[in-house]
């Protein structure tokens, strides 16, 4: 009898196979995530999903709808309200050969599991001299915008990306979400996969056939030579809107969707900066020691002489996330701010 712990030979991933983004198989972001998990679970019986409300309730945000019916209660597992508990159980499962997907209802609640996800998982391979890896995926909602108050609105990427040993994925659309989540599940390292409640209902064409998207490869969403706009996750949409408005005034910009923060595709950023000589980074985290700061530092280190204007960034304000609708809107990056920043960069 084979057990779930026996090694499994999986077919090699072909990252070059990238089916078209054009088509009419429109599905929601949440469905794309579900397809990614379900496809990998069908292929690999070591993969399971665990978290609060994922099974009987079909997911607090309906990402795992129907998965309990298909995979059963052994693989779609409801937990008590014990984030540190199920993060730690997941870590051990990963160390001993399973492939857990752990859902945090919100990344805000991952903070009560901080020791497991930051102090255990990312260091396990290192501390065991390469013996115990942690091929685990933690996923859930990240980011403000839903009027959930400051404790419920965390953007964890700024904080967590400081920690070596984890990969951090932050897709902006259904197509990327699916391809990146499949890669995350197949990856041998721990992956933090950041979704947004604001985008789960977004629809786009997602091809029927399987595909994987490599980590560390940004996507050029829009081309121009006036300025480089760099973003990741939900604010990519704000950048695209801003780029559209700028184009009406004859300012064409490159918009780069980083897709993964760790690894960071700085090469693509540098290549674009060498063309535009200007950069604005848009980041939904707080400004201090943020991913935006990191991108800009690396640009300065590698392409200082190519810059015609000091790099600019558009972050949230440097305060806890406001609860009130009008304050939250003022706090977050938005197209107005992005347009203003780009104009500032190109006016010189």
């Amino acid at each position, binding site marked *: 009898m084979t057990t779930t712990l026996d090694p499994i030979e999986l077919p090699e991933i072909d990252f070059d196979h990238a089916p078209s983004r054009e088509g009419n198989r429109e599905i929601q972001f949440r469905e794309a995530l579900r397809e990614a998990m379900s496809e990998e679970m069908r292929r690999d019986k070591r993969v399971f999903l665990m978290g609060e409300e994922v099974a009987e309730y079909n997911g607090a945000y309906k990402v795992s709808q129907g998965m309990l019916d298909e995979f059963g209660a052994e693989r779609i597992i409801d937990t*008590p309200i014990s984030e540190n508990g199920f993060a730690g159980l997941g870590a051990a499962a990963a160390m001993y050969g399973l492939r857990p997907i752990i859902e945090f209802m919100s990344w805000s609640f991952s903070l009560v599991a901080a020791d497991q996800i930051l102090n255990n998982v990312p260091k396990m391979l290192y501390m065991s001299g390469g013996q115990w890896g942690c091929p685990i995926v933690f996923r859930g909602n990240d980011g403000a915008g839903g*009027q959930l108050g400051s404790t*419920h609105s965390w953007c964890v990427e700024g904080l967590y990306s400081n920690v070596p040993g984890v990969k951090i994925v932050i897709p902006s659309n259904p197509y990327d979400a699916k391809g990146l989540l499949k890669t995350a599940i197949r990856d041998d390292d721990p992956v933090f996969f950041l979704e947004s409640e604001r985008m789960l209902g977004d629809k786009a064409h997602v091809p029927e056939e399987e595909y994987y998207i490599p980590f560390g490869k940004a996507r050029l969403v829009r081309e121009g030579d006036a300025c480089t706009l760099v973003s990741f996750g939900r604010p990519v949409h704000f950048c695209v809107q801003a780029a559209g408005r700028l184009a009406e005034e004859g300012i064409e910009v490159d918009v780069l969707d980083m897709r993964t923060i760790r690894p960071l595709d700085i090469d693509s950023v540098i290549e674009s900066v060498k063309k535009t000589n200007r950069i604005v980074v848009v980041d939904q985290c707080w400004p201090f020691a943020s991913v935006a700061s990191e991108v800009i530092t690396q640009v300065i280190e590698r392409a200082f002489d190519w810059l015609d204007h000091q790099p600019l960034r*558009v972050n949230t*304000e440097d305060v806890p996330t*406001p609860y*009130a609708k009008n304050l939250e809107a*003022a706090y977050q990056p938005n197209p107005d701010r992005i347009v203003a920043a780009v104009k500032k960069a190109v006016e010189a």
Partner: protein
Amino acid sequence: MPKKTVYKATIEHLQILNEDGKLDASLAKNTLTDEEVAFLFEQMVIWRHFDEVAFKLQRSGRMGTYPQNKGQEAAALGSGFAAKKGTDFLVPCYRENAALFLHGLAPHMILLHWMGDERGNQIPDNVNCTPISIPIGTQMLHATGIAWAYKIRKEPRCVVTYFGDGATSEGDFHEAMNFASTLEVPCVFFCQNNQWAISVPREVQMASETVAQKALAYGMPGMQVDGNDMFAVFKATRDALDRARKGGGPTFIEAVTYRLADHTTADDAKRYRDVKEVEAWTKKDPIIRHRKFLESKGLWSDKKHAEVEAKAKKIVDEIIKTAEGIEKPSPADIFNYTFAEIPEQLRVQRDTMRTNSLGQDPSQTGLKTEHAHTR
């Protein structure tokens, strides 16, 4: 050496007023007077109405997500009434509005909170409670800390902290319980076991038969009460507070109750709850039994009930008017409350409403928000 039993325990369940409104007179001795029951029942009717109206406000887009308290009012009122207003301190989660109101929190503050306004959390100096706590379980440690302070200062004051059955799965709960019992602090851990944590039933949440027995592991007295019976809730809480005030340490009370409404306005409990279960608990609604009791005493009538309902409507209308009449917060507010004194960088950021790298230079204007310069 023969084997011997080193620890044995039982958990008691206290009920004084049953579902039919019948009172156990001997147990009821030295609990609530008739006048007090009538007063608390009136509160129950008012805050039930408040809850129903809050639900409608959310449905009509006038408020954000709201967790109804429906069915749990006796637990909130009985325990809140046992705590000394102005002396004791309440550390709530989000399902005991009536207890906070008894202790003087203006009800529009709760609406303001759920309308998405931080100012709903500005607790007046003369009200002893912390704001509603959203991260599950974290407030119990604060309660333990506050109670510890009372002990150190030798103040005869106690803390009552509220949380749900689901919250007892969090590590914070266990750490709070352990601290509280080893430090012997004057804290009452009041668990509203409403049988559900969103869609997770109590028996899936935990394997223990009662929630109360979790206290035993910490050497803390633990008991169960009928949470829909104000007499039982009051007596258990008052006795626990009396003991705590005399230096007897913490107590755990499991109030067995039921969430008659959805988890929040974002939930639809019909999808996971059996109608029969809800029907059975609807019969145990605290409003039904306390009304029956008062009627049997000649203290309540249909006419009186209609009067109280009309009064409730007026009171709640006023509360909504107050909450909705408050001017929207100014964008400058988000900067004003981040530090005790606003640092220079943040001041510049406030005055320009720009993000860090842009905001460093006050000469860069253009995105000022209406109120940005008002403070």
